[in-house]
């Protein structure tokens, strides 16, 4: 019976060559005998349910989470209801974090490029091989260029970034670029120019809130996005100024569709009203501020009638808003927000905001703008060797580089305001400036940069003018990317190192400043699924290999090397990370236990403290030690010290629209679109186009259009709506990725990096995402 088979199954027969011919070699089995027989059931995760506290890492907010792990698998991420900063909420992305470790798309093992860059030919290598390869390339570059700064290190914020800097400092490059200049550097600079620091807003207690260009209902920031609705005091007024009717605008008592790039004019006119009608806080101004008379003189011409022409908001409305703001002071907030990478004069915009708060005394008191407090952690006294072959940052040494990225320097009316056109005035040591950095690398000025490390940053998608970024990558002789997913940038790397997800790793304690300061830490919610490592382990691995190469240490004092081996390598990197964390917390008894249990730690039950900066003898971080309405350091630098109104330098051609970009609550920049649970909410982005404009062009809602700037062109669906002014268009960022592979985001919608022009804010080195003009045509 058995022999009467269909011919297809002839391999089953006696004569099958598959029997005799297959004597496989030894050691090929992936499975081995289980340890016990009869089987020990206790090692199976049978019907277990555990709750493990940690923090979300799907965006910067780091909300408190409690992972619900059923039978060893993460079933659900619950919000931590006791968390002081996130107030017990968890957004769509935070919830969808469950799928991150379980994404088949994630990087699983170190990969080494074998084909051409970007061709997609890789081979697997072991971590040992990877560490050796990286160390060797670092040594080669150091040898060849005799300058450690010839290797640049990009990174994005996150708890493990601390350990990335162990690698950076062990190699000795000064060229680091962080995401700050793509995001909030202008905001930090502008507010600090007045108050010496970048504050938070006490939305839970404010009576009057003025938000310009922040969409807190969609671009979620904790606790603000919670507080402005959940805890809003009875009768709190919300005034929103935005060229778009955002979800936040929909919550406002009044929404003003302000003309883009004129926010400063609106606030200057408010200041004008408040001063001329004598509504400012005399006592506060007298006690704490410097330069009021100069300010008064400056704003005299900025009447509401003047501003009406700039902002296209009626003078009476401006007057009303100014009076209301002063009326509710000090419980009035002009909202600092977060991302401010908008315009080339953005620092002055933020300075103007801060000055409004200052003259009304809306500072460091309940319901006002309040400086951040923070809980101090013990730091490890690590001394990295001093390397002789290290040159200063490219974006600092470079002079005259930036003329290409500063709007029409020659006829620039900004020169009048003293904005530099050669470099950035206040470059942050660690953050650098993406745009300037890239220009310097492209021009080999002042020296060649030929190595590029990238830790969880994706400049190909996130830095405006992708063509230049690609050119920069082409110049590199060595590119190493440390990532969770094969990002667009990783795709062009020579070696890709897979990082564990935040749900699988121990992350160091991290102090997060704010009105409600906390300390956070991460512990693994689940075991790593693949052969991935954390930056702590990766830095350790690479540094150990570096130590085997003598040429990497020939430009330092040999004594330094001995110390380095002892203090950095043996005492920190070779020890369990828990030791590191416990040391961070030595001054806080019980904190480690509390962090294991709750994922966060507070002092004093996390209650806010107001008024520290108002105590007698307090010195603000400014030249005069006061709140500077007139900035003395700006004056020294040749910058205009007051927030003089900055007219736009780049103007649209007829038929062009100003391009605006923003976020939704269910995607974080470029990293989340491929998550099935988020993708189902939004499958592509669409360009917002005002109804009247669409009608003129015969464009109907839902049809595809071409959007074109001087940088590039994208195809995208039109969303025809009354919710946007006629002079601008908008889409959310992070779509239309390069990767054919971001299977879901690919070719769905448009990318902003492909069309946004690389315009630089020359005070903080920030990018200006809203200085690009586009045309729209039917596709």
């Amino acid at each position, binding site marked *: 019976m058995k022999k009467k088979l269909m011919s297809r*199954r002839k391999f089953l027969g006696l004569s*099958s060559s598959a029997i005799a011919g297959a004597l496989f070699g030894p050691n090929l089995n992936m499975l081995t005998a289980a340890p016990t027989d009869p089987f020990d059931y206790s090692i199976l995760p049978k019907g277990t349910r555990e709750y493990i506290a940690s923090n979300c890492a799907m965006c910067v907010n780091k909300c408190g989470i409690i992972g619900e792990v059923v039978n060893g698998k993460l079933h659900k991420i619950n919000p931590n209801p006791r968390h002081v900063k996130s107030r017990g909420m968890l957004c769509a992305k935070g919830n969808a974090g469950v799928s991150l470790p379980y994404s088949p798309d994630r990087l699983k093992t170190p990969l080494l490029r074998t084909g051409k860059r970007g061709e997609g030919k*890789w081979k*697997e290598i072991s971590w040992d091989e990877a560490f050796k390869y990286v160390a060797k390339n670092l040594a080669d570059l150091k040898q060849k260029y005799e300058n450690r700064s010839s290797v640049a290190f990009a990174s994005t914020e996150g708890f493990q970034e601390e350990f990335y800097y162990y690698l950076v400092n062990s190699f000795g490059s000064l060229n680091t670029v962080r995401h700050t200049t793509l995001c909030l550097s202008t905001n930090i600079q502008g507010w600090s120019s007045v108050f010496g620091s970048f504050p938070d807003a006490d939305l839970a207690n404010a009576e009057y809130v003025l938000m310009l260009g922040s969409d807190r209902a969609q671009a979620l920031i904790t606790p603000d996005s919670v507080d402005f609705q959940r805890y809003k005091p009875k009768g709190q007024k919300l005034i929103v100024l935005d060229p778009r009717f955002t979800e936040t605008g929909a919550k406002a008592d009044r929404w003003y569709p302000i003309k883009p790039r004129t926010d400063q004019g609106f606030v200057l006119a408010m200041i004008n009203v408040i001063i001329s009608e004598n509504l400012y806080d005399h006592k506060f101004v007298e006690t704490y501020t410097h330069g009021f008379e100069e300010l008064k003189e400056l704003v005299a011409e900025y009447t509401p009638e003047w501003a009406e022409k700039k902002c296209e908001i009626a003078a009476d409305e401006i007057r009303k808003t100014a009076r209301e703001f002063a009326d509710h002071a000090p419980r009035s907030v002009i909202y600092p927000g977060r991302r401010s990478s908008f315009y080339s004069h953005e620092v002055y915009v933020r300075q103007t905001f801060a000055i409004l708060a200052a003259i009304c005394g809306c500072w460091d008191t309940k319901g006002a703008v309040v400086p951040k407090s923070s809980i101090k952690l013990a730091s490890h006294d690590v001394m990295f060797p001093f390397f002789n072959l290290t040159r200063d940052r490219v974006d600092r040494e470079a002079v005259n580089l930036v003329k290409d990225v500063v709007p029409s320097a020659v006829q620039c009316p900004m020169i009048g305001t003293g904005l530099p056109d050669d470099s950035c005035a206040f470059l942050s040591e660690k953050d650098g400036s993406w745009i300037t950095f890239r220009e310097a690398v492209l021009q080999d000025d002042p020296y060649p940069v030929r190595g590029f490390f990238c830790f969880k940053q994706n400049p190909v998608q996130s830095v405006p003018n992708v063509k230049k970024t690609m050119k920069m990558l082409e110049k590199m002789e060595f590119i190493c990317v440390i990532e969770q997913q094969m990002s667009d940038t990783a795709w062009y790397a020579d070696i890709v190192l897979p990082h564990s997800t935040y749900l699988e790793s121990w992350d160091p304690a991290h102090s997060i400043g704010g009105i409600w300061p906390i300390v956070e830490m991460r512990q693994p919610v689940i075991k790593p699924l693949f*052969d991935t490592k954390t930056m702590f382990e990766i830095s350790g691995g690479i540094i150990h290999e570096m130590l085997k190469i003598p040429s990497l240490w020939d430009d330092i004092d040999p004594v330094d090397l001995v110390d380095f081996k002892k203090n950095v390598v043996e005492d920190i990197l070779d020890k369990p990370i828990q030791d590191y964390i416990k040391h961070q917390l030595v001054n806080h008894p019980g904190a480690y236990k509390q962090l294991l249990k709750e994922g966060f730690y507070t002092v004093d039950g996390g209650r806010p403290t107001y008024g520290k900066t108002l105590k007698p003898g307090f010195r603000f971080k400014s030249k005069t030690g006061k709140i500077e309405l007139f900035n003395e350091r700006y004056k020294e630098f040749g910058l205009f010290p007051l927030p003089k109104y900055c007219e736009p330098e780049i103007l649209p051609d007829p038929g062009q629209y100003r391009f605006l970009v923003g976020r939704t609550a269910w995607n974080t920049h470029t990293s989340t679109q491929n998550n099935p649970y988020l993708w189902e909410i939004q499958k592509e982005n669409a360009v917002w186009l005002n109804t009247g404009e669409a009608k003129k062009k015969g464009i109907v809602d839902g049809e595809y259009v071409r959007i074109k700037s001087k940088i590039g062109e994208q195809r995208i669906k039109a969303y025809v709506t009354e919710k946007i002014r006629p002079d601008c268009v908008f889409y959310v960022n992070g779509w239309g990725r390069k990767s054919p592979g971001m299977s879901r985001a690919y070719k769905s919608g448009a990318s902003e990096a492909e069309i946004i022009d690389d315009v630089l804010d020359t005070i903080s080195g920030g990018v200006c995402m809203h200085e690009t003009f586009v045309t729209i045509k039917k596709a």
Partner: protein
Amino acid sequence: MEMSFESLKETIFAQSRTLRPGMQDKHETSAWDKNRLDVESALALKNIFFYLSLIFRYPTEQIYSEIAGHLEAFTDFFTDYGGAVPELPPIDDLQPEYISLFVNNQGFVPAAPYASCYQGDGLLMSDNFYRLRQIIMESGFMLDASVHELEDHLAVLLEFCSSLLNTLVEKNNSSDKNLMACIYALLEISYRYIEPLVDDFTDKINSYASYDFYKVTGKALKSLFHDADPIYVQLLGFRSNSTNELQG
């Protein structure tokens, strides 16, 4: 009472998708006489499973030379099930091909070789995963500590099936109950984990592969599992309702 092949399959699928009670309680009613095993066919299938397991692993030098060295022996199998004898590209081409199909492509993986990805929301470690881990352990196996893979990787599943067939052939003195457990495991892996994967998996290979190697071997895998019913009926000597006609 003798169970038909179809009712055996039904019993397997009637069980929950998550963890199951210990093996012991389960197989009281079924009985199987080892004499019914078609030993030669079992050996042949065992080798084919193992060979396919090698093919769907990352081709290190060792694996590559095993694949190359034994291709000859499986000519018949590939001709019948894959429609051709696969042409093995040089290792320097096969490695990137493997990565770009099964490990990481630009932002995604075209043909994830994990059973879980073909069930539910398409993510790893879906509902069935712990059940699989349990089946493997209860059959006396576990992943070698050096292997950084999930148990539902196609190569692990195929190797596991191969090992189960080996147990059936070799364990002469085992009780019926143990052997029956082996058969349950074999069928469950084949039908609950591998079969639901093969169609989609091979489609994806076909649309993303640069070489024919994985197209042909994928097709062979797919046809083999489409043909699993009559193969198992014949091999295990079960009474069958629907596959009778095939046996003539």
